[in-house]
């Protein structure tokens, strides 16, 4: 189905549903859909391959300050979808009758309609699979190729319409040497280039050669370290878990509590932004608010602003910036620093080159103390030269320290990394961030 057909069909359905409203009722509708291909590889062979076609419509029926929500899958049959929507509206109406007024209800009653449709230049699956198969020859390749069109929409009975669709591919893969010794890479974007993919394959192949050296076991202790952008993603993901939301701040559950209560700061070079205009995610949410182009969360190492959902806006009497209910960044950007990217090995000198981190969690949330593992291409470096891969290490350190007084600097060439997560559907999240050199990082196991 052509994209405009889908937008029109959702528009028609919501317009029809709006016609079923009683009195002063308001209907807010959020659409989420995807037509996606997923091909999973192991040992260079196909483990599972297939397609997912899904279209879900969330309805929020508002009666004054009472409201209830439902999400249903659309079938594609107009009459059947109308019947289901009518059933859901009846059910929501019955629920509203027994609900209390919601003091934190906030939706956009004066919103701006918008359309953002990216061009569809996705590769033919056969072409992509052939390239993947070629890269896997003689190597132990494992990973996931995903591609397709992602749709988001908002429509209200007040007339607002927002539509977003983007067509992207992502190949997220690892070359394994043996046991847990592997190099990880990803290639994602809008249009497939055999040359660009080959460059990434060759980069991984070169790392594999180094991984073939006997691995070193480093004892627990404090080491100077370089965190590659992929490792930095894991660190900022942890900060995003309650670090930037207004609600987590007001309820004292933020991991940045000490920045609030004790005046703790990060390194002056740290600037973190919710960079909606520079990201891939849609710029509207399920209550119809448009997100600003950017929200500066940390500037000069100091806390600057929160992400504020409509609900938190009402609860804490602060203007919303259109954040989702979980108030986490979706297009996170960390400003580049001044360390020459090409010179990070010299800057590191002797220490750990950490390609990726894995399975992070707070070991003391209020102190922003975080634990996690090294994973994939992680090496011991001496005199600016890679010596050997290292066996996995567990770190346990405060991010306030790692991005604070222990931060030597950030690299000058940030990388754009698309989120390859696919829980429920393909993510539209993205990151733009540099690597970092830290004076010391504490490892415990």
């Amino acid at each position, binding site marked *: 189905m052509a994209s405009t057909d889908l937008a029109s069909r959702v528009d028609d359905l919501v317009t029809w549903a709006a016609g079923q409203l009683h009195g002063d009722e308001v209907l807010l509708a959020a659409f989420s859909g995807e037509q996606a291909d997923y091909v999973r590889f*192991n040992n260079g062979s*196909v483990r599972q391959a297939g397609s997912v076609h899904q279209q879900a419509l969330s309805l929020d029926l508002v009666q004054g300050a009472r409201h209830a929500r*439902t999400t249903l899958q659309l079938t594609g049959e107009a009459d*059947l979808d109308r019947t289901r929507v009518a059933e859901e509206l009846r059910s929501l109406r019955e*629920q509203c009758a*027994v*609900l209390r007024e919601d003091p934190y209800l906030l939706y956009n009653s004066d919103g701006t309609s918008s359309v953002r449709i990216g061009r569809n230049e996705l590769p033919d699956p056969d072409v992509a699979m052939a390239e993947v198969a070629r890269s896997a020859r003689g190597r132990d390749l494992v990973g996931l190729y995903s591609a397709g069109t992602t749709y988001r929409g908002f429509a209200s009975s007040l007339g607002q319409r927002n539509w977003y669709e983007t067509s992207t591919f992502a190949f997220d893969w690892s070359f394994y040497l043996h046991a847990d010794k592997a190099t990880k890479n990803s290639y994602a974007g809008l249009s497939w280039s055999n040359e660009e993919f080959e460059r990434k394959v060759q980069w991984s192949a070169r790392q594999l050669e180094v991984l073939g050296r006997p691995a070193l076991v480093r004892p627990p202790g404090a080491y100077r370290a370089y965190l590659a952008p992929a490792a930095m993603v894991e660190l900022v993901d942890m900060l995003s878990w309650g670090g930037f939301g207004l609600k987590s701040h007001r309820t004292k559950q933020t991991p940045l509590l000490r920045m609030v209560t004790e005046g703790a700061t990060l390194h002056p070079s740290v600037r973190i932004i919710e960079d909606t205009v520079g990201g891939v995610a849609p710029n509207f949410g399920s209550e119809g608010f448009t997100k600003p182009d950017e929200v500066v969360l940390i500037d000069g190492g100091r806390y600057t602003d929160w992400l504020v959902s409509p609900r938190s806006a009402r609860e804490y009497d602060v203007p919303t910036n259109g954040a989702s209910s979980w108030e986490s960044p979706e297009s996170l950007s960390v400003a580049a620093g001044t360390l020459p990217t090409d010179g990070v090995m010299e800057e590191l000198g002797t220490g750990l080159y950490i390609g990726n981190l894995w399975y992070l969690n707070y070991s003391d949330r209020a102190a922003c103390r975080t634990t996690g*593992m090294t994973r994939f291409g992680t090496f011991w470096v001496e005199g600016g030269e890679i010596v050997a891969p290292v066996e996995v290490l567990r770190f346990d350190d405060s991010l306030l320290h790692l991005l604070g007084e222990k931060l030597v600097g950030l690299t000058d060439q940030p990388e754009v990394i698309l989120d390859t997560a696919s829980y429920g559907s*393909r993510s539209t999240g993205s990151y733009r961030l540099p690597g970092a050199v830290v004076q010391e990082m504490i490892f415990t196991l």
Partner: protein
Amino acid sequence: MDNYEQRLARHMPTDIEYVSFRLHLERSEGLTVRDGVVEPPHNGYEAGVMITVWDREGMGYAATSDLSDAGIEAALAGARAWAERTAGLVVLARSPLAHGSGTYVSAVDRSFAATTLADRIALLAVQEQRLRIHARIVDSVASLYRVDSDTLLLTNRGGRVRQSFHNVFPNLRVTANAGANTQTRTYGGGAYCGQGGLEVLDRFGFGEAAPRLAEQALELLDAPPCPTGSMDLLLAPDQMILQIHESIGHPLELDRILGDERNFAGTSFVQPEMFGTYRYGSDLLNVTFDPNVAGQMASYAFDDDGTVATRGHLIRGGLLERGLGGTISQARSGVAGVANSRACAWNRPAIDRMANLNVEPGEMSFAELVGSVEHGVYLETNNSWSIDDSRNKFQFGCEYGRLIEDGELTTVVRNPGYRGVSATFWRSLRGVGNADTWQVMGTPNCGKGEPNQVIWVGHASPACLFGDVAVFGGR
């Protein structure tokens, strides 16, 4: 369901080696009361079908929410196209799956259908209010999430498995704060979930828990940090389930051992040749896959590949016997497994998942476990989990701890945590609680797979005692 079954049956092809239609219909209701405010109910209605084709040494699937005749036909064509495209490229050329038939329905003693929405909200409002007992309480939440799902698996050789599940997820969460110290207590970290009706709320005393949790959150504000050092560690069942999940369940998944998860969830320190000979834990350790436990989260009669599910030991007397792998992984690896091929929804293919994975009870009472410790700590309710990609080096944290000194539970301690290595940790198991300490629980959110899937699993465990563990505290 019946209408959909007739429609699907009309589209079942006869010219393909193996075809399955897995229909999934689901109704859910999420209710939350937070800080005295009833949040809007969130209902869900899922409906979709996953069509899987194995043919001529290829395999493909297509999942669709379009359940019209045209939608089903398009999905079938899509699955066939993927099978054709992958011919000769797949890890297993032919389906080893059975064409089973049977039914399962969750046992429900007291149905939620006998309650009104107002009743359910009132229940939560009362409990949430009981969490707000002091000015230092800065956030309080009572929630109830319910999922009623019906699945139908039809195959082209007459297989028909129909299962109906009723899963209930109650939770309480209370947060207290004093300056830079924030402490949270929950209702088992969400682990007190299960199949059934209203009786699920009674299994762990949902109606009585709120005041205790609130008092403990306040108590933790003034508690000293957990001490650091090597000591005995007594884990409550609501922490044991995390320990089982991360350092027994995931390492024993055959698809990890086969390498499927290496790009995402990770590999395993367990290798195929270890089954049958490897000492996983002390001789007190007995672990079962048990889909028959009444009321447990992942009880079922068949997995999502249509394999009959039966109880079996994975670890017996500390020795590793079999893996957590469904029919496909067993065919690929040659290792004995169980019926645990599961999909989180209609839009994801089945993979090896934990289901009900339980540590069997031992012989010691809780008092005997505590009494056997000279210097140690007792921990409840997980709040932090991290483990390496081979499922070996772990570090876990808990909401609540108490010192054990000379056989007595003494001082409450905050921010307790401990570290270990799976391959040696279970060998330090030196006490297993008896049936009186055994609790049947679950983990609502287990993530794995490419494309990613979150699924719920069941875990049951007694309290367990481990010797000489590296314990630590926060600031």
